[in-house]
């Protein structure tokens, strides 16, 4: 059965589908399960590692910023404690102090000033003209006058540029005064900005009101930034003193925020990074996994498709062979039962035919004695009686053939040289072949083993095959080739003609008794059945191959080691 036929057969179609689905299911389930579990574990551990990394970075950065501020605050506090109000109130001394601070820390300190209890800057050293500036309403002053030291939020102030101040409060004769130093925003900002994480990560600082205390490299998560402080501080993602949070912006970008409180909780240091950037490795791994799964899936599907078709083709072939074997068994059984039937019929017919023939003989016996006046009538009667006798003989021949098909007639076993039998058969048929314009040729292998079989039976087989070949060629002439050869332990004899061939529909039935394609009265349909019976009895095989318009070849295979 070819592939097309298999695919059209509903049984094989459904079998193919089932095998396909089973292969796919069996292959996909572990693939997806294993990939899923691995990806999930990788995801979890990567998140853990990434968070840990960010936490480390933020903590370190927080320490840097805190120590920066603390250092500057300590310097100012030291100065306010070490020098008297009168000394610091001397602008010359103040300028020198600023110069030495700037020498120590670079341009981080922008200016220094002494502010009295009323908020008036009574002395100033720095690039701006801020002598006698009134800070009484400034929030930083209000805080500074009430605390020993402060670090203010970033503000624009009188100079109109962002900055923040560090203050230290002292008393002179019970009246407070404040030493203030302005910290350069750009210097502080570059310190904050110093932290770069991945491609999109940056750090910034917010105060309690959600106002920027540093200038972020890019706009932070827009409007939501105002609520970040509360969100982070009150959020649940707290681990030690580092806070984790995630936010979306308008364009659905996801951001990862990692924060820590600095300046005693007044400010919050926030590191913001696009989530896709933070987890780009993970995304890559995911993409590779998906790609592998995809390629694997395609391979599985193609394999399943080809494998299922291959398996079903194998099954179909086996089924076909089984079917053919069943057919052969049925055919053999059919022939055997037909043989039994034929034998039964032959026996039953023998008795009535014998009576008929004998009665005719009896009439003939009388006729020899009786005088019949009309000679013509006598002749006619004798002819009729002879006809009965002839037809009786014909019946006997048929029943004998039937019996021989049923293998119930006697046969003498003797040493037989197959080539001799073939040559005999050829000589029997030469006259007929000449008449039918048929050329008989033979191709016989010499020194074939001698067989212990019935000479008359094997002769009958070849004669039958020869007669059939001549019948087939009778109308138009042609060639008949007889060959004999030894193949393994078999003697193979073939009788080949180049006649019209046997149609496929008839091929399966040619060994059936009474099957004939010859005109009524010409053939009994028993010839090949008898051949079949004889060859089978000898332990051999008779087989036929035929192509319409090309010819027919009969093969007789006989075991050469048969000694019974």
């Amino acid at each position: 059965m070819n592939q097309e036929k298999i695919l059209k057969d509903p049984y094989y179609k459904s079998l193919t589908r089932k095998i396909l689905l089973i292969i796919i299911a069996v292959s996909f389930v572990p693939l997806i399960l294993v990939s899923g579990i691995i990806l999930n574990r990788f995801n979890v551990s990567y998140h853990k590692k990434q968070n840990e990394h960010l936490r480390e970075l933020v903590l370190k950065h927080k320490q840097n910023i805190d120590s920066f501020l603390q250092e500057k605050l300590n310097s100012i506090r030291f100065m306010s404690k070490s020098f008297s109000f009168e000394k610091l109130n001397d602008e010359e001394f103040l300028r020198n102090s600023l110069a030495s601070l700037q020498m120590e820390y670079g341009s981080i300190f922008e200016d220094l000033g002494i502010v009295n209890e009323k908020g008036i800057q009574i002395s100033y050293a720095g690039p701006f003209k801020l002598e006698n500036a009134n800070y009484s309403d400034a929030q930083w002053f209000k805080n500074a006058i009430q605390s020993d030291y402060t670090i203010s939020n970033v503000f624009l102030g009188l100079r109109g540029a962002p900055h923040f101040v560090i203050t230290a409060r002292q008393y002179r004769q019970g009246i407070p005064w404040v030493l203030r130093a302005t910290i350069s925003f750009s210097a502080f900002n570059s310190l904050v900005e110093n932290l770069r994480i991945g491609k999109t990560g940056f750090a910034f600082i917010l105060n309690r009101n959600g106002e920027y205390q540093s200038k972020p490299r890019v706009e932070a998560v827009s409007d939501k930034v105002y609520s970040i402080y509360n969100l982070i501080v009150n959020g649940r993602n707290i681990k030690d003193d580092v806070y984790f949070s995630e936010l979306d912006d308008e364009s659905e970008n996801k951001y990862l925020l990692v924060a820590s409180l600095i300046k005693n909780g007044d400010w919050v240091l926030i590191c913001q990074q696009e989530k896709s950037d933070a987890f780009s490795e993970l995304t890559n791994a995911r993409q590779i996994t998906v790609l592998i799964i995809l390629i694997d899936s395609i391979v599985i599907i193609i394999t399943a498709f080809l494998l299922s078709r291959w398996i079903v083709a194998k099954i179909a072939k086996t089924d076909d062979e089984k079917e053919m074997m069943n057919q052969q068994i049925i055919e053999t059984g059919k022939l055997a039962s037909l043989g039994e039937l034929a034998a039964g019929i032959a026996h039953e017919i023998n008795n009535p035919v014998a009576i008929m023939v004998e009665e005719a003989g009896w009439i003939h016996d009388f006729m020899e004695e009786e005088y019949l006046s009309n000679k013509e009538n006598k002749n006619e009667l004798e002819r009729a009686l002879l006809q009965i006798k002839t037809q009786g003989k014909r019946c006997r021949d048929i029943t004998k053939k039937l019996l021989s098909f049923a293998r119930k007639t006697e046969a003498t076993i003797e040493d037989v040289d197959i080539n001799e039998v073939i040559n005999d058969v050829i000589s029997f048929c030469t006259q007929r072949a000449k008449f039918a314009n048929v050329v008989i040729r033979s191709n016989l292998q010499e020194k074939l083993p001698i067989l212990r079989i019935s000479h008359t039976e094997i002769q009958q087989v070849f004669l039958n095959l020869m007669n059939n070949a001549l019948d087939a060629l009778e109308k138009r002439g042609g060639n008949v080739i007889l060959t004999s050869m030894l193949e393994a332990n078999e003697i193979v004899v073939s009788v080949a003609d180049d006649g019209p061939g046997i149609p496929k529909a008839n091929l399966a039935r040619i060994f059936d008794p009474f099957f004939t394609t010859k005109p009524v009265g010409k053939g009994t349909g028993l010839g090949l059945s008898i051949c079949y019976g004889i060859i089978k009895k000898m332990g051999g095989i008779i087989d036929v191959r035929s192509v319409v318009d090309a010819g027919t070849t009969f093969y007789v295979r006989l075991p050469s080691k048969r000694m019974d």
Partner: protein
Amino acid sequence: MNTKPNSTEAVRPGSAKQPDSIRLLIVDDEKDFVNVIAKRLSKRNFEVTKAFSGPEALRAIRKADFDIAVIDLKMEEMDGIEVLKILGKMAPELPVIILTGHGSGAALEEAIHYGAVEYLAKPCDFEELFDKIKEVCAKTGGKKNV
């Protein structure tokens, strides 16, 4: 011819018994066959006795002597082999020809084994049967003037 079932009867050649004729017993349950063969053989100077079953044949042999017997193999009441077995003890010198339409190779071999001297398949040529009978009688010393 009027035949009585279950009874043997001799068909005399011509109207009177001829002293040199061969005494032949024909046994077959096919009555029509027995009748016609008996008539034809009688016409050829045989003294024919007909039996339509095995027991009938044995009764006839007990009553009279025969030169030869022609027996069918397959009969309903007692088959030819059984008859041969009994004849082997009862009349071992009686030559028997088997004439049967049912003879398989094995059955014929068995018949030969139990003492049959020849066998013929039905339908046989009457002349063949005639020749066989003559041949057997000649061999076994039966009457020759047929």
